[in-house]
Structure formats: structure tokens, C-alpha cells
């Protein structure tokens, strides 16, 4: 065999292996989705959206409490985390730039992004839940916001840096002060990218259980009191899934399905916005 023939054979083997690996990895994904859709659709019904939780064996039980709780927790986390993330990202891109401080913040933020979420839950437990003396929606939302910030900070920083410097200069050349340049020109130019970062950030935390376990904890009943424990789809799903009751397990599958579709939807919208922005 000549050297060239040898190379061709090696190439083919490598190609075969990598294709096989990709197929295996993807088939797991579709397997998970398939099971989820089958079990989830089976468990889904209108009563889920109408009734709150009830002890096992009752006919009128649903997920209304967890659905609303989930929306409140994620919504509150968004309200806290998005402005902080965007402002921090703006600082890095427009003010800090290549300074030591900016690089340090970027590094810390990257580390935070990979911190185990249960550690963040423990942190919020120590600094909020313990001093307050009880679980609360606030604590849960803050834990989620802490996870959201580094993601939004990073995308904002990256997206703002993609706006050409000459566009900033052109605004300065018209006599614009810096904050106007950022708001009028830089944010506008990076709108799609920032929005995508926000959606991906929300999607990332919406499926978290660990940070909520000992912050917002859980509840089987409907509540909108932010100072009390608040049910969420994720913790409810966790509790129902490990329970020995068949009807609770069914609700767990429904929760898993709704949650997955929500997150999948956010991801798809985020990517579509980015794609539309790029095409322009």
C-alpha cells in the first residue's frame, strides 16, 4: 500500500467512526424526546391546567400551582437577572474593554457559568433563606437570576463587540455623548443578539431543579405570595416522579413534557432571531 492509499483508508475509517458516534449521540436525543412525547401526551389533559395539586388518589388534581409558580419564579428571575446581565455586559464591552478588571470579570463570570447549580442553591439558602427563616419565591428567583447573569453578560459582551467601531465613531462625530451612542447605536445594532442571549439565558435556568430545592422549595397548592415557598414544575416533577403513586407519576410526565416544550420553544425562537439578524 502506498502512503496515499494508506491515508485514504485511515480517512475512511475516521469518517465511519465519527459518523457512527454522531448517529449514536443523536439517537439518544430522539429516544429521550420520543419517550417524553409519548408519556407526556398520554398524561396531558385540560384538567392539569385547571386543578392544583392534591393528595394521591384524588381525581381532581393538576399542575396549575406548579405552572403558575414556575412562571412567577422564572419571570422574577428574568426581571432581576436580565438588566444586571445586560448592564454588566455593557460595562465590559463599552467601558472595561481590555482592562485587567474587565478580563477578571469575564473569567469569574465564565467560572460562575460552570458552577454546579446546587452550590448556587446552597449559597442562596445560606444568605437569604436562613436569615429570613423560611423558604420563599424571592430566594428561588434570586438563585435562578444568579445562574442567568453570566450567560446574558457573556452574550451581551460578545454581541456589542460585534457592532463595528466606525458606527460608534460616526455617532460620536455627530456630537453624541457616550451613553447616547450606546443606547441609540450600539444596542440597536446588537438588538437581535442580545435578545437571543436573554432567551437562551431564560431557557438555561427554566429547567433547573437544584437551585430551587432549598430556596423556593415546593408546595402542593396554588400561591402567588412571593414570601412563601412556591411550587415549580421542576421540583414538583422531582417529587411526583419519585413518589410511588401512579397518578402523581403521570402528572410528573406531564410536567416534564410541558417544561421541555417551553425550553425547546425558547431555544428555537432564540436561534431564529439570531438567524434573522445575521441574514440582514
Amino acid at each position, binding site marked *: 500500500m502506498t502512503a496515499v492509499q494508506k491515508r485514504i483508508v485511515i480517512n475512511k475509517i475516521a469518517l465511519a467512526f465519527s459518523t457512527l458516534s454522531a448517529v449514536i449521540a443523536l439517537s439518544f436525543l430522539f429516544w429521550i424526546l420520543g419517550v417524553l412525547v409519548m408519556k407526556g401526551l398520554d398524561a396531558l389533559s385540560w384538567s392539569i391546567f385547571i386543578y392544583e395539586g392534591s393528595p394521591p388518589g384524588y381525581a381532581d388534581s393538576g399542575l396549575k400551582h406548579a405552572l403558575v409558580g414556575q412562571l412567577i419564579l422564572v419571570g422574577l428571575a428574568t426581571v432581576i437577572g436580565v438588566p444586571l446581565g445586560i448592564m454588566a455586559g455593557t460595562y465590559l464591552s463599552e467601558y472595561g474593554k481590555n482592562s485587567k478588571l474587565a478580563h477578571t470579570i469575564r473569567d469569574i463570570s465564565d467560572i460562575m457559568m460552570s458552577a454546579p447549580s446546587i452550590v448556587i442553591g446552597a449559597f442562596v439558602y445560606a444568605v437569604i433563606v436562613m436569615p429570613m427563616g423560611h423558604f420563599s419565591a424571592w430566594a428561588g428567583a434570586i438563585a435562578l437570576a444568579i445562574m442567568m447573569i453570566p450567560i446574558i453578560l457573556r452574550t451581551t459582551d460578545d454581541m456589542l463587540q460585534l457592532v463595528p467601531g466606525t*458606527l460608534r465613531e460616526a455617532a460620536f462625530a*455627530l*456630537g453624541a455623548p457616550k451613553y447616547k451612542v450606546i443606547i*441609540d447605536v450600539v444596542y440597536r445594532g446588537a438588538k437581535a443578539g442580545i435578545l437571543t442571549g436573554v432567551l437562551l439565558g431564560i431557557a438555561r435556568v427554566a429547567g433547573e431543579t437544584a437551585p430551587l430545592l432549598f430556596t423556593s422549595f415546593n408546595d402542593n397548592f396554588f400561591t402567588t405570595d412571593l414570601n412563601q415557598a412556591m411550587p415549580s414544575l421542576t421540583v414538583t416533577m422531582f417529587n411526583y416522579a419519585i413518589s410511588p403513586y401512579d397518578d402523581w407519576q403521570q402528572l410528573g410526565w406531564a410536567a416534564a413534557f410541558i417544561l421541555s416544550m417551553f425550553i425547546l420553544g425558547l431555544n428555537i425562537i432564540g436561534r431564529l432571531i439570531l438567524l434573522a439578524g445575521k441574514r440582514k
Partner: protein
Amino acid sequence: MASIIDIKEECALQVRNFDFTYKGAPAPSLKKVTMPIAKNAITALIGPSGCGKTTLLRAFNRMHDLYPGNKYEGEIEFEGRNILDPKEDLIHLRTKIGMIFQKPTAFPMSIYDNVAYGMRLQGIKNKTELDGRVEKALQDAAIWKEVSDRLKHDANGLSGGQQQRLCIARAIAVEPEVLLFDEPTSALDPISTQGIEKLVIELKERVSIIIVTHNMQQAARVSDYTGFMYLGDLVELGNTEELFVTPKEKLTQEYITGKFG
């Protein structure tokens, strides 16, 4: 020694003994530049790449201040004061001395909002006044006919040449005294280039213009005065015709006859 023409008419700007050093650079990029800029005339800056044309141009509106650590020395006189003074109000200065860049810099907003941008910065909110001045600026920039029916459309939908004229409209809408052009046609096709050149010539009735160009024909076509720069020095400043036909400096002659550059 440099050969600098003595301008008899009124001057818009007077550069005297101007040195400029970029942050961290071992040597100044501009050395002892002394240069009068005639009022209501077009002054072209030519010279080989890296000789300091852009650097000089961006000193006139203190653009270099956007990046900390750069150093100005000497004097640039404008409206009776030295604009290199650290206390100079840069926002005010930049409304008086506008700039057009090499690549069109249409903001990601509508055509109308682009032109109105500088006026709104100055606090003009009255819709009738804005409408009138936007139309006037677009007309003066010779682009009104092409865009009058789509003022609310995104400015990035325009062609490169149209965007460049939009940027000119945006700059003249705030009624500056001086306009700085840095190779405004180098990214454009010949037809658009012709349009911009014609426009620049029309504009000198109202503003004083400094234009950097790599294209000697362009300098000869549009400008009244031409400055030839080399390695951070202003080698010669003269009437455009004289400079191209009978240059006083040997270096100028070598450059315009294509011996280097």
C-alpha cells in the same frame, strides 16, 4: 524644509507646530505640521499609505480622544481658540466639525431617523422643523428624490453610494462649519464616486472641506488646495493646480509622477 503656501483668504482652521503621538508609539506620527485650511474651499490631503493623513484629519474633531493615551502638542486654531485645549467642549466641537468615513456608517434605524439624529441630539423636537430640515439635508445631499417615498425604511437597505450620501445629509443637517472626509469614495463604484465628488464641490459654498484621498485625480478634480504628506510631515501645501503642475518640492514631484507610493 516644507513649502507651505500663504493663504490670502480667510482661514477656517490654522494648524501650527502640531505633533501627534499615538499611545505607546515610540515616535510621533505627525511632526511639526503647520497648515492653514482655507474657508469655503476644499483642501485635499494626499500621500502614501501610513504618512499620517487620517491621523491629521481625526485631530480636527478630536476623534483620537475616544482612545485614551494619545498625545497632542502644538495648536489647531478654530473660531479664535485652540481646540487642542484639554478644556475644549468636544460635543460642541463635533457639531461644528463633522466627519464622513471611508465606509458608509448608516445607523441601524430609518433613513429619517438617521438624518434627524444629530438635530435630535441638539434638542430639536419640533416635528415640523425636523421634517423640514431632514428634507433640506437630503436634498442638499442629492438623495432626496431616491428616498423621499421611503423615509421610514431601514437605512441599511440603501446602496453603498446612497448610504454615503445619507451620511453626508446627516452631517450637514446639523449645519457644521467644517466637514472632514476620509477617503469617502474608496468603497464606491465610479458612478457613485462621481456623485459624491459633485456634491462635495457644491457643499463648499457653505462649509470648509478637508478631504483625504488616495486618488490623485480626485484631488485634482475637486480640491482648491492640496497638501502632500510624507512620513508624518506636511511636505508641501499649495494651490492644487500649481502643486500638480509645478510642485516646489522634489518629493512632491516624485510622488505625483508615480516614482513611489
